[in-house]
């Protein structure tokens, strides 16, 4: 009752909140369409691209856009458009693998850590604290550098950095849920710990994890591109966006399109993921933890 009255006291605030939500939903639609286009391009890329992404044509170096090369050619005469589209496959594929691995790893560990606690929880928490001391990106560079430059190592390094965040979110939800009456009731009903985790707690994790993942894809793509740019990820001649940026660097003055197009592509996908994630967060009413 009182909630109603006090909520009404803060009416102007709530109205702007509702307005923001609508905006967010419109933004979410934009993000979704953008991401959809990129995914479609990646899926049907091999059919639509006009050229081969790897064929070197030294005679066609650094050409301006034309019918044959929609976005021009790079310093080795390869079609930039083709390389971008094929690169999208690679970028999206790697991030999908990373996200799935990270969820499969982080969610169960977070659940066990939060619900059962004990020594296991202390170990997880120490890891979380330790990793929190420096930005993720620094750790990713360190791991990738230590493991040596290659795509599998890149994936491994990013997973190593990222699972912690998921474990932490899931752990905090589990911690707050485990004292709730439905969990206690399940315990009294004779459910084993495993059943409680699987049947009662896991479903509660879906929305926060989905939101976190949607917001994270952008970051993961950034890390992949940045590591590749630094030469720690995809190796030439693989058409990865970050690696393409790196390739274009010496020609930036004379042929900026070599860096502009991959840069725009990275920007577009990161923005799309963030819009989608923010929208989902609003829609699923998940508070940032």
């Amino acid at each position, binding site marked *: *009752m009182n909630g109603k009255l006090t909520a009404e006291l803060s009416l102007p605030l709530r109205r702007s909140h509702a307005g923001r939500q609508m905006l967010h939903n419109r933004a979410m639609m934009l993000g979704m369409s953008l991401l959809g286009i990129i995914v479609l391009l990646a899926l049907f890329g091999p059919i639509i691209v006009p050229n081969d992404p790897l064929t070197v044509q030294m005679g066609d170096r650094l050409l301006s856009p034309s019918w044959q090369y929609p976005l021009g050619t790079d310093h080795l005469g390869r079609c930039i458009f083709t390389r971008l589209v094929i690169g999208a496959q690679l970028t999206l594929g790697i991030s999908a693998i990373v996200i799935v691995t990270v969820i499969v790893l982080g969610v169960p560990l977070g659940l066990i850590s939060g619900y059962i606690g004990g020594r296991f929880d202390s170990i997880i928490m120490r890891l979380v604290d330790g990793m929190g001391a420096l930005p993720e990106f620094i750790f990713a560079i360190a791991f990738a550098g230590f493991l040596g430059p290659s795509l599998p190592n890149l994936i491994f390094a990013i997973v190593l950095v990222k699972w912690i965040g998921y474990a932490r979110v899931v752990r905090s939800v589990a911690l707050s849920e485990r004292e709730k009456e439905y969990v206690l009731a399940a315990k009294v009903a004779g459910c084993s710990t495993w059943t409680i985790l699987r049947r009662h707690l896991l479903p509660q994790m879906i929305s926060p994890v989905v939101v976190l993942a949607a917001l994270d894809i952008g970051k993961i793509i950034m890390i992949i591109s940045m590591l590749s740019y630094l030469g720690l990820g995809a190796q030439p001649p693989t058409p990865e966006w970050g690696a393409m940026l790196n390739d274009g660097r010496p020609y930036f003055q004379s042929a900026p399109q070599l860096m502009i197009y991959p840069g725009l592509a990275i920007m577009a996908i990161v923005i799309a993921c963030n819009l989608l994630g923010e929208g989902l967060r609003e829609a699923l009413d998940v508070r940032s933890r």
Partner: protein
Amino acid sequence: MPQIMDKETTHMEKAQQENAASPLVAVEAPVLEVSQLQIFTRQEKQQRPLVHGVSFVIPRGETLALVGESGSGKSVTASAVLGLMSGSLGISNGEIRFRGDNVLDWPNKKRRGLRGREIGFIFQNYQESFTPFITVGKQMNETLRSHEKLTRRQAKVHALEWLEQVGLPAERVYSSYPFQLSGGQLQRAAIAGAMMLQPSLLIADEPTTALDVLSGEKVLDVLASLQKRTGCAVLLISHDLRHVVKRASTIAVMKDGHIVELDTAEHILYHCHHEYTQQLLNARPYIT
């Protein structure tokens, strides 16, 4: 409140004078008169009625308890009186007369002037009555000084006086932060904070629901004694008929947006007619 404020008179004395003076006024409009109030809610362009023509009157110094369960419309009615209805609600018909004037005709700014000064309110959630990280005393002091020309020191004297009136260790509570007080203490401090402005009407929305039985009783005791002293009218909102029937002079039982029974507390208790009232009275066992 058209009256001459003597700077030497304390709040308490002023209240007593006013109270004593009241019988001399020949014909006085009731403090609150709600007639045929209809409230609706807008949902996707459709209008759905929530309150269907509710009428009641609260004279000076009396308590009317508006009793009903969740969804009965009692809180919406209270928020309409306060002028704090949410944007999706609207009043389609009826009048809310405050001391004779229909406040629904007033501009928003004028109605805002009523709140606090003329219409005080306390909520179920006592934690929301005070800002968390400012001492209770400072908040009371500022409220007082925003309504009356007082120095900081004068305001403190008044605030302490009112805290004492609600049976609290005044000095200690004055310098306490809200989280340092128990629920019952905070609610009593909230009553002091509302009553010190000497409103003509106090709206108490489920003031004891979040409290323990014994502290809830104390809160209602304090409310009753301050009401006696200041002569303010009280609109008491509650879901528990048994709890308020000994505290109010008149009871209005609400169900699904209608007042199903309106009578003196005594009649409600011993000769109620409506089946629903009966059901509410017998909702919990009696001690035998």
